[in-house]
């Protein structure tokens, strides 16, 4: 017997620890492993890849070359511009539409509220692919397309919505305006319901007009919701991909190429994984910077 007293007691302490907390750590292990394997590992290897000329047979370290290429690439800048235009053109518009819809739905009776909530939520649960296919039909460039037929009533010639650079990006934005309000409406309605009625009664007694009540009570108290929708909206919009991929393939003449689509193109058409990784990192950093700025500017007087 060479086991010392100390080691025996420490091993029994370990046993006791396992008995008391073993299950807890086992359960924690599962999500931690998932995170390590499917999030942290890809991120780190993408970061490494972005400094490499990636080739399954012969990968070489090229330092910042991918980033240099990227910043000298006109298509990258164009896709950056498209992404920013798309974001500025959709996110605020969507928030306004969502807000107005919520504002009216909120005044309705319960049963009507349910109907509108369900209807407006449908596009949110429908797959992006389905929606894109529907919109391809709506934007059909021949005179049988839904919009073109409608314009035809006023004698306007058919427009090649998705096929010309002047209208393609706008068409994608229009589709976005009309689709994605369900989740936002649910959030706004919950937030509106959370404002105590007595605040409005106090305001009534305080001589507040309808507009004052809206501007000084409703809107400020909904600011956390608006901020949330803004930040998540910008993040989603920076990554817009499905509709571009299915409806325009980034064309015509890169008019609808967004960063996410460019990354896809670089990686899976040109198999330049190093450059694609570099593009991904630029996108990620942009998203982080923009989110931080939004929080800084908007959250200063937000009441949580």
């Amino acid at each position, binding site marked *: 017997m060479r086991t010392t007293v100390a080691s025996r007691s420490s091993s029994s302490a370990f046993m006791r620890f396992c008995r008391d907390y073993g299950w807890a750590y086992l359960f924690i292990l599962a999500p931690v492993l998932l995170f390590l394997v499917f999030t942290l590992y890809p991120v780190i290897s993408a970061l490494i890849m972005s400094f490499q000329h990636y080739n399954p047979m012969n990968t070489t370290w090229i330092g910042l070359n991918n980033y240099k290429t990227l910043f000298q690439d006109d298509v990258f800048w164009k896709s950056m511009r498209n992404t920013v235009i798309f974001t500025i053109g959709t996110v605020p518009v969507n928030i306004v539409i969502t807000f107005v819809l919520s504002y009216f739905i909120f005044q309705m009776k319960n049963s009507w509220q349910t109907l509108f909530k369900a209807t407006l939520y449908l596009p949110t649960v429908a797959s992006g692919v389905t929606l894109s296919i529907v919109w391809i039909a709506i934007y059909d460039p021949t005179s049988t397309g839904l919009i073109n037929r409608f314009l035809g009533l006023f004698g306007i010639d058919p427009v090649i919505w998705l096929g010309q650079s002047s209208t393609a990006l706008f068409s994608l934005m229009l589709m976005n305006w009309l689709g994605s309000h369900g989740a936002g409406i649910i959030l706004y309605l919950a937030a509106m319901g959370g404002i105590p009625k*007595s*605040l409005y*009664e106090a*305001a*009534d*007694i*305080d*001589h507040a*007009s309808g507009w004052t009540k809206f501007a*000084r009570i409703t809107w400020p108290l909904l600011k956390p919701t608006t901020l949330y929708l803004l930040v998540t909206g910008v993040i989603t919009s920076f990554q817009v991909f499905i509709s571009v991929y299915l409806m325009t393939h980034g064309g015509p003449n890169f008019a609808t190429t967004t960063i996410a689509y460019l990354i896809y193109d670089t990686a899976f058409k040109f198999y330049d994984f190093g450059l694609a990784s570099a593009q991904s990192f630029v996108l990620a950093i942009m998203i982080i910077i923009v989110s931080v700025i939004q929080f800084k500017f908007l959250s200063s007087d937000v009441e949580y």
Partner: protein
Amino acid sequence: MARVEFRNVRKEFHDQQKGTFTAVEGSDFVINDKEFVVFVGPSGCGKTTSLRMIAGLEHQSSGDIIIGDRVVNNLHPKDRDIAMVFQDYALYPHMTIRENLSFGLRNLKKPKAYIEQKVQEAASILDLESMLERKPRELSGGQRQRVAVGRAIVRDPQVFLFDEPLSNLDAKLRIQMRVELAELHKRLGATIVYVTHDQVEAMTLGERIVVMNKGAIQQIASPTELYAKPRNMFVAGFIGSPAMNFMDAELDGNRVLVNGTVLELPESMLSSSLADYDKKKVILGIRPEDIYGEDFVQNVKVEGKMTTSVQVVEHLGSENLVYFQVGERSVTAKVHPETKAYVGLEKTFILDLGKVHFFDPETEMRISD
């Protein structure tokens, strides 16, 4: 200038599931200028609804409401020249205390200097000066309550409406704020309508008290009168703590028969209306503080003796509560702490017969004296 009057006001709520519900019925009262009137009654009796009808936040189903010398039936809350302190205070959470206080005046487009002065005034009256730049959530319950009062003060309204303003405060703070509100009333000389379910609050604050039950006004009177001459058994039981005791009794000339005990009424208690109940059943009411242990009687002119066994004794320090049974009913006596009493003791209690009340067992109304 600012009296408040209800003329036969009625309020019904219509609910798809529960049907029509009458929250306030045949409400008639006059609150005089500069008077502090308290509405009191159990929860759900229609106090808040009455107050909200004065404010114009709820529209009466029928009847007239008069503030000052105007019928305000169809006036919007802002045109009624009233200010209200809500039970949950309803402070604007995203505004500073200064903004909360000035919100109403700014909506009225008053000059900046005037608003500034009014806010300072209110802040100094209510001791809020150091907190003007804070948000409501950074304030304690008592401070928030004062901000709510301040928001009312700055507007110089004709009538102040308070809806259970102290119910969210702890006991100690409640007593302190009660004193402050009473002082504030003297200082402002304003008409105040104050709603509470707490009869102690009502008795201490109100110059007159409106007792309500199930949507109907039971009695309007000063605290002393409510205590001395409750108009019916509801008021008698509601005002005073512990509540008034009731015993089933039968009148026989100047004698009352209670559960086999004969009590001889003093001359002062006899009246012509009581005479109408001769040989009939009545309800005898007596307050716990008018019952004494035989060994500790104080200032009782006409004694009624009743011997029974003690069921429960509660020691409150300054007094003891002794419970015993009379017929079917439990009776409480509030006695001097040195009165001998323990469970099971056969004890003779002395009833102060000069202070008993009689009620009709059918109508539950007071038999006047």
